[in-house]
């Protein structure tokens, strides 16, 4: 299984408040994390980088031999996210400069073909293969909640001035319940994890065209970021692209 991580400041911002990383244990288990921080002067940058670092540390320290059942993994992931939330929430409340900070957090735990995703906020996980692009996670956005209530239409949602409001973020509330998704990685399938700097700018067709092209994995991530920048680049852009095609080659 191969992956590429790329995070870019975009063309308008002076700070990159996104963070992204992929951690790998010796036994091949992987954790891919992306975070889009928010909150004023220092907070956004701190929130996202701390979230990615701390959940990575948790992951690297864990003794995976104890984790056989799927349930254990889900529980570990949930607890790790809650731990990060507590840490950031406490820090924000004890330090004036960090008050109000928060971050989105996508953490995808990959064991062989099975993938467990913890989702909070409006960063996204897509599964892309020859059949198309499937958005795995659903944004915790204000507009989505209005849409669910039937109060607004898809058309209204698309132009809603508050479509940048999110309902859940790590570090901004005392308690957090992340959404957990499972995904079976199939042959020739790519998993794309990104922040809204990409998903607001690059439509699913372009995403699919780039990801399924014949270019190298690194070039694909660069092309995705370049396209988002070409479309304006108002926000930071982060991408993790995972290619599951070679799963069998590594574990025959």
């Amino acid at each position: 299984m191969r992956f590429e991580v790329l995070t870019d400041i975009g063309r308008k911002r002076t700070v990159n408040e996104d963070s992204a990383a992929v951690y790998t244990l010796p036994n091949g288990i992987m954790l891919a994390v992306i975070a889009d921080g928010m909150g004023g002067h220092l907070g956004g940058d701190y929130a996202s980088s701390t979230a990615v670092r701390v959940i990575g540390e948790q992951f690297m320290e864990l003794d995976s031999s104890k984790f056989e059942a799927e349930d254990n993994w889900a529980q570990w992931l949930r607890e790790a996210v809650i731990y990060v939330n507590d840490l950031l929430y406490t820090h924000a409340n004890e330090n004036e400069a960090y008050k109000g900070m928060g971050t989105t957090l996508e953490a995808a735990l990959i064991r062989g073909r099975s993938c467990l995703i913890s989702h909070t906020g409006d960063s996204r996980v897509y599964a892309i293969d020859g059949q198309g692009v499937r958005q795995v996670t659903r944004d915790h956005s204000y507009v989505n909640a209005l849409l669910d209530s039937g109060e607004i239409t898809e058309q209204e949602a698309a132009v809603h001035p508050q479509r940048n409001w999110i309902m859940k973020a790590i570090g901004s509330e005392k308690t957090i319940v992340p959404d957990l998704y499972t995904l079976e990685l199939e042959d020739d399938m790519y998993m794309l994890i990104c922040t809204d700097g990409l998903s607001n700018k690059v439509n699913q067709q372009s995403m699919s065209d780039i990801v399924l092209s014949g270019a190298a994995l690194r070039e694909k991530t660069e092309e995705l970021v370049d396209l988002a920048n070409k479309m304006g680049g108002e926000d930071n852009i982060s991408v993790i692209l995972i290619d599951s095609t070679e799963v069998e080659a590594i574990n025959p």
Partner: protein
Amino acid sequence: MIGSRIGGRYEIVKNIGDGGMSKVYLAHDVILDRDVAIKVLNYDFANEESLKRRFKREALSATSLTHPHIVDIFDVGEEGELHYLVMEYIEGQTLKKFIQDNGALTPKQALPIMLQIVSAIANAHHNGIVHRDVKPQNILMDSDGNAKITDFGIAMALSATAHTKTNSVIGTVHYLSPEQARGGMATKKSDIYSLGIVLYELLSGELPFTADTAVAIALKHLQEETPSVKSIFPSIPQSLENVILKATMKDATYRYDSADEMYDDLLTVLSPERANEQRFAILFDDDRTRAIPIVSETPKFDSVEVTKKIEPVKLEQSPPSPKKRKKWPFIVGGIAGVAILLLVLSLIPGVLGPKKAVIPTVAGMEEAEAKDVLTESGFNSFISQELQSDDIKEGEVIKTIPEAGKKRAVDSEITLYISIGKEKSLLADYIGSNAETTMASLEGQFKSIESEEEFSDKPKGTIIGQEPDAGEVIPSETELLFTVSKGLEMKILDNLIGYDEGRLDDYEKSSGFQINIRKEYSSTVSEGRVISQTPNGKTEIEKGGKVEVVVSKGPAKKPDKLIVQKVTIEYVPDIVEAVPREEDGDESDEEDDGNNSEVVQQPAPVPQLIRIYIQDKNNKMTTIFEEFPITETVEKTISLTLEDGQNGAYKVMRDSEKIFAEVVNYNDTK
């Protein structure tokens, strides 16, 4: 930031508020020598030209607004990455804080505030500016209790950025109109909706729609009917609740057409005429839904009575004359059967009835006297009705029906109209209300309305007394006099800097100010003299107000220092005794044997006496600090406590020999 100067003229004094996207500072404009508030945007505008332009446009358009209840914007500027607005400085608090501190306001307290806010919004609307974020957090209350709206258009302009937000926006959602929640354009009617929510909060002390998340609140704005404030405080007049209901209609077409209309409605909302108003509701038409507000003014009670009484007059006055009846009975009857019946009926009493008599003139008589006179004429059936009259004294008969001079059967019923004097109305208790708005709403209803000002601890402009008191009055004769607070009596505070405590005492007694003294070290002001004062000298402050002065304690003493030094005190035994022992030949054999068998045997060590002397804050060199014997080399820690500038020293004596002596100065060490 504090202490720096921006725009070349604004000296930042202190932070006075934090918003999500901005910080507000009190600053001093050194050119115009006045205090201003500076809102510094906590936003990275770098590379966002369009947003920057939009912000500037919004801010500049708001500078065009001049209204007593809108916070003046003096200037919009940028310095490097810093973008700021220079505004009128309002010493006070936000309306949100005011509500949190005071809880629900009475209708009388809430109304003047509401009138001020609505007039401000109306003014902005006339200038084509929609606020878009009307909420108590954006309304400042100055020390006189006047409300001033701030942040026209700015907050929303900034929120339209790519920045992701969280539930921190909940404060805004509480006042958001349904159309804004849905993502539509904010219009003047959106401001009216928010004003309705603000009125609800003023009257109830709470928000109409609350929930844990922004979206849940937004959904309530979209779906739930505005709750009734009357259900919380039943004493709130329906007319006032109707203002909330009308302003917060989900469909903007049913709201007030303009802030002006809302203002006019508020002006009369507490008037006695509207005391019996029905609940505002909307009826639906067949083909087109249309608002039919049931707010039609209920006519005055008095006039209802008058019309009722006058109706029979008309009937009685119009019967055909007897002459006609006699002359054309059959012709009339031939024309209409109904008329015949009427005629027959009216003829019967004339034919069969008993005696008739002419009604005497009793107008101007007392009621009893009038009845006597009527009885003398043969009448015996009376009804009395009270009626207002400007000409006839109370208790006297105004007129009769049938009128005097008419000939009627003696058993006819005579109605006597008895004067209750001039028109009266109930004068409300206006104490505690805002004078300006009260007087505006009462204008023209009394003979005269005047006001006089007095010093008071009530906010400036508040009615603190009224003459006559609340109760029944004759409006046309009433000269209403309000005593209005002109706020606290102000006095100019002297410059107290340099005063000693004696002079401060004298000044406190003579001026009546309460002087609080705080002491601080100062290297420039001599001990006992005033270094600084708050407020500054020559400032006008309320009589009896508090003045904070800082009195010098003289130069600060630096903290004591602890100096710790380690010394190694060697044991240097006097070996003089041992040497002759070894050279002692007499006992050499025995000694040698002994030495051989016990290899390491040595003579018992002779103790040496160590004396330590210390000169520092607590000790003197003349007395022994510590004394102890040693039989081996020891390490000793010597601690000196030194005051600022003090010299310290220590010495260590081994028996009679001085082995260490050290002088340490406070300033030598770190």
